């Protein structure tokens, strides 16, 4: 049974701060590239299937491999003013670990999902003709 604390909760211990898991290996890097849109490429370029325009409940797919991975890394390195070697080096990992916005880099902002219906339910009665 949960303990009840004092009325002003002053004795409530602050919940421990969560820390983002550092991006320190290839798998994490692949996920990063996929999550922020670097795994996409022009159609037919041999990249993984483009990430659908919208959030993904179970997390991004594994991300690019092989040549596609090198290509994605090169593009990421170029825009971050890093040597475009296509190899996952320390500087690239450091760039991936910088504080950043969660919107993908090469796509429009995430698809709008609202916690409330964006368009109110239609009023009772016949639908408005204008639609």
């Amino acid at each position, binding site marked *: 049974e949960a303990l009840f604390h004092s009325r002003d909760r002053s004795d409530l211990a602050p*919940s421990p*701060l*969560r*820390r*983002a*898991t*550092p*991006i320190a290996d290839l798998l994490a890097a692949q996920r990063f590239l996929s999550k*922020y849109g670097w795994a996409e490429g022009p159609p037919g370029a041999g990249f993984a299937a483009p990430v659908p*325009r919208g*959030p*993904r*409940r179970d997390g991004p797919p594994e991300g690019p491999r092989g040549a596609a991975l090198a290509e994605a890394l090169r593009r990421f390195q170029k*825009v*971050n003013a890093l040597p475009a070697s296509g190899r996952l080096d320390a500087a690239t990992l450091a*760039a991936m*670990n*910088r*504080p*950043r*916005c*969660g*919107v*993908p*880099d*090469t*796509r*429009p*902002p*995430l*698809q*709008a*999902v*609202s*916690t*409330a*219906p*964006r*368009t*109110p339910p*239609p*009023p009772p009665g016949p*639908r*408005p003709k*204008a*639609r």
Partner: protein
Amino acid sequence: PKRFLHTLLRAPAGRQPEDAAQAGGAQAFAKRTLSWRLVGEGYSRQLSAEEQRHVFRLAFRMWSEVTPLTFREDLAGPGAMVDIKLGFGRGRHLGCPRVFDGVGQEFAHAWRLGDIHFDDDEHFTPPTSNRGISLLKVAVHEIGHVLGLPHSYRAGSIMQPNYLPRGPAFELDWSDRKAIQRLYGSCAGSFDTAFDWIRQERNPHGDATARFSTYLFRNSWYWLYENRNNRTRYGDPLPILTGWRGVPAQNIDAFVHIWTWRRDERYFFKGNRYWRYDSDRDQAYTEDEQGHGYPRLISEGFPGIPSPLDTAFYDRRKQLIYFFKGSWVFAFDVNRNQVLGSSPKKMTEVFPAIEPRNHPLRSLDAAYYSYAHRAVFLFKGSTYWRVASAEDRQRRPGLPPNGLFPRQPISEKWFDVCDVHTSTLTM
């Protein structure tokens, strides 16, 4: 039911949604006044509620200073009607399918034309602090996304994906302004009056010098315009009341600066009265040397001049004030303190069109001599006509005296003179 139609997306005027999709999928709100709210269950634990709302008010204001958009905080309406909702959360938050990762890496994200979430595990700080992550900077960035801007890797852009630690106070630079104006257009609008304010100083050698600043007045607010930077001063517009003590708080008709070797008098005109402004004490005079109180009737101080006026400007070369009312122009000789015998004349006669049928004809909003452009401009609505200067007539002798060059859009010479929502005017 039709009221909800405006929530349906429409591409900016003149562009079909497909075009918009081609342009990288950027889509824009169809409305020009957008509402926002920091949702009740989404307050941060790190800053006071008022601090958070103040930062968001400032962030929205910064975007409205460079676009025709205005933003108003909606504290009470139904949630579904709020255009942009902001909130803080940790890990799994606010029903969002995207889980925050804790301290480091992802500190916020935005949903297009929708909501903005901030990771409350991050150390967000107010603009006055130089530690942690500036909430203002992140908010301006995420609002940019909601309005339709993608990330940019251009140095200096607020839309860079990675947070850049503190630097000088940041502003929306030229390219960010152009990017958002590609979606929403640039600001256009008329002025009540426009003038260059002269400051007389002494340079280090003791010589008298004069410098000028350009001011644009509209309704109850004003901008200082930085000609060399082609934009308004950061943080403008401001309420007239805060910058010009003792003059009317709004809808000023005209400003005239009589500046000769012996005289340096500045007058504001509104309705049938005028005020004289004391440049040294930066406030309006309450009375003149003879003890007459201000404001005074225009008919007393400027005999023969009707009121209310449309506008007026002072021509230093001729030492004449041109008063405009309707389609008439009254030339007033400041040395003899009387209207020229030949006045009034038709505006089309005093300022003839250089290109046929390209003339404001009547009801000017403002007339303005610009030291930056060394020319007189006549404003009406969102367009201006430039008066041919002596230099123009040296180059093209065939030009008529005071001829008007064809109209041009004001917004293509005075950039980003944008209104803000009145609720944020005093920020």
